[in-house]
């Protein structure tokens, strides 16, 4: 179990050159397609890529080019129409327990935060833990710990309506880490935030990713944000048109 202990040894991704064993392959897509409305909308038109353990991939591209759709495929929120999409060598479309995959392997962060309005911060963070056999007390403890690690130790019992945008996104980040995922998927996580909050939320996501050696796939419009990534994937009209390592 990945714990967010600030004193934990930081696990850095191994640099490619010095690696004796290459970093594990996390995602692999070949000819990945996604249609909507019986093929009238082609959101993904044959996408190929490989993402390895610990990478920070920024996905950029104009509105409607298929960024969110791609993230949904990676998170098993929806099924591809054609092509191959593997997670650690297994087809995501054929996972026996897609909910379990979403609960334990993946953490998702949305642009609109998507907290449940009738639950407090600490309760929202516990939601994904119901799919594990963690007992009640330990659920609460871990949620408190996670909220402290995102700097919200003083907002545990606040309802979402009483939190600022930045605070809401911090709760959502804590929730995404609930079950110690190995992959973080973030769809324009700072899209609803002002520039100060954008900066601190990104720093938080990047710090947590580094501390826990998570793979991060982040969709953004902002080229300044994309520059922080180890790799930038540019999409257009449902295809990947450029794939650069960080400069």
């Amino acid at each position, binding site marked *: 179990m990945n714990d967010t202990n600030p004193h934990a040894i930081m696990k850095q991704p191994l640099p490619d050159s010095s690696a004796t064993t290459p970093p594990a392959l996390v995602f692999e897509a070949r000819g990945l397609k996604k249609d909507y409305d019986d093929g009238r909308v082609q959101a993904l038109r044959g996408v190929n890529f490989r993402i390895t353990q610990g990478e920070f991939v920024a996905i950029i591209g104009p509105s409607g080019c298929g960024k*969110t759709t791609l*993230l*949904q495929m990676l*998170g098993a*929120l*929806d099924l591809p129409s054609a092509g191959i999409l593997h997670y650690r060598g297994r087809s995501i479309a054929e996972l026996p*327990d897609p*909910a*379990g995959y*979403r*609960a*334990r392997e*993946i953490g*998702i962060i*949305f642009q*609109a935060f*998507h907290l*449940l*309005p*009738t*639950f407090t911060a*600490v*309760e929202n963070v*516990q*939601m*994904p833990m*119901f*799919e594990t056999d963690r007992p*009640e007390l330990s*659920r*609460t403890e871990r949620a408190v710990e996670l909220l402290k690690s995102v700097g919200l130790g003083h907002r545990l019992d606040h309802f979402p309506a009483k939190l600022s945008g930045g605070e809401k996104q911090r709760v959502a980040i804590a*929730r*995404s880490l*609930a*079950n110690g995922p190995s992959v973080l998927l973030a*769809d324009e996580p700072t899209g609803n935030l002002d520039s100060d909050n954008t900066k601190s939320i990104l720093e938080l996501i990047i710090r947590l990713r580094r501390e826990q050696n998570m793979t991060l796939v982040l969709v953004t419009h902002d080229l300044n944000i994309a520059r922080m990534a180890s790799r930038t994937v540019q999409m257009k009209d449902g295809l990947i048109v450029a794939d650069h390592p960080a400069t």
Partner: protein
Amino acid sequence: MTFFTIIVRGLQRRPVRTGLTLVGISIGIAAVVALVGISRGFEASWATGMKVRGTDIVVSNMGSALAPKPFSATVRDRIAKLPQVADACAIYADLTSVEDASMMVVSAREWGGFSWHNLKLISGRMPHDAMEPAVVLGQTAAEVLKKKVGDPLQLETKELTVTGIVDGGAMVENGSVILSLALFQNITGNEGRINVIDIRAAPGLTEDEMKHLCEQINTTAPEARAMVAGEHLGNSQAFRFISAMSWGTSLLAVIVGVLGVMNTMLMTVFERKQEICILLAIGWKPGRVIRMILWESALLGFLGGIVGVVLGTLAVKVLETLPAIHGMLEPDFNAGLMAVAVALAVIVGVLSGLYPAWRSSRLTPSLAMQG
């Protein structure tokens, strides 16, 4: 936070709607409790009435009216001759208005017959003879009619005197106006007519022998039907009708309850579509969402059931104090009926949640990312 907290929070989010749904379902359950309780109580107390009079078999002609149809008094003598009949007492029983009370049991009993023996005097005295213009009142009847010993009592066109107040040992008895059969026949112009015969069988008869005796009586007296006491009310058409009505009304109330809960749960699912999608996106299994909805509606049913049982009991208590029916109800509110009512409410809750739960399970997590 436990899963149960999530369920409760789901009901708390729209307190007014939850409250109104609770009222709806609890009224349904209250109707079940009140109607079934009353009709079962009626049956039970009628049976007790028979028992305290020491009646084994009742001979009467329970048609569709509330009071049995009259037949000739000679039937009594024919039946009394049967070897296994130990004793017979002719009665004319009527359900009629007496002074200010709209419905009273008037029970005119053969002078000297065994059906007088269970009456214990509380005050006053029994009539001196068969033709003295006197009545005795069961204690509830005395209360309802506001009479004490020595007061006059108008029956049909005749003014009688209340000579005694009695404890009959059963609700039916205590709610009755009791007088001599001959006097009553004289007043009402029903000479030679009776409509009930209480029969004591020879001691030690088995249940089968008792049934056999009934058949014998039926051949001897085709004018009426003999039935083992306690069973006879259940066989009366009027009682069956009341019983069917109470179950029918209850069923209707329950159906209304189901629709109410279903509507609420459907609204809740539509309203929480986005939230359900988010839960699915962060890893909840569809089965957990289904369970959440079903538990919510089951809890709604359970709470409605509890409130309904309380409401139904209170309603009957209020009903009992109404002068028109005071002393005529002896509702049977046993723990079994309460448990059945609450269980029924929970079943109603779960059934009403099935469709909404199925709807919720068809939501897909990808909707969470849009909007």
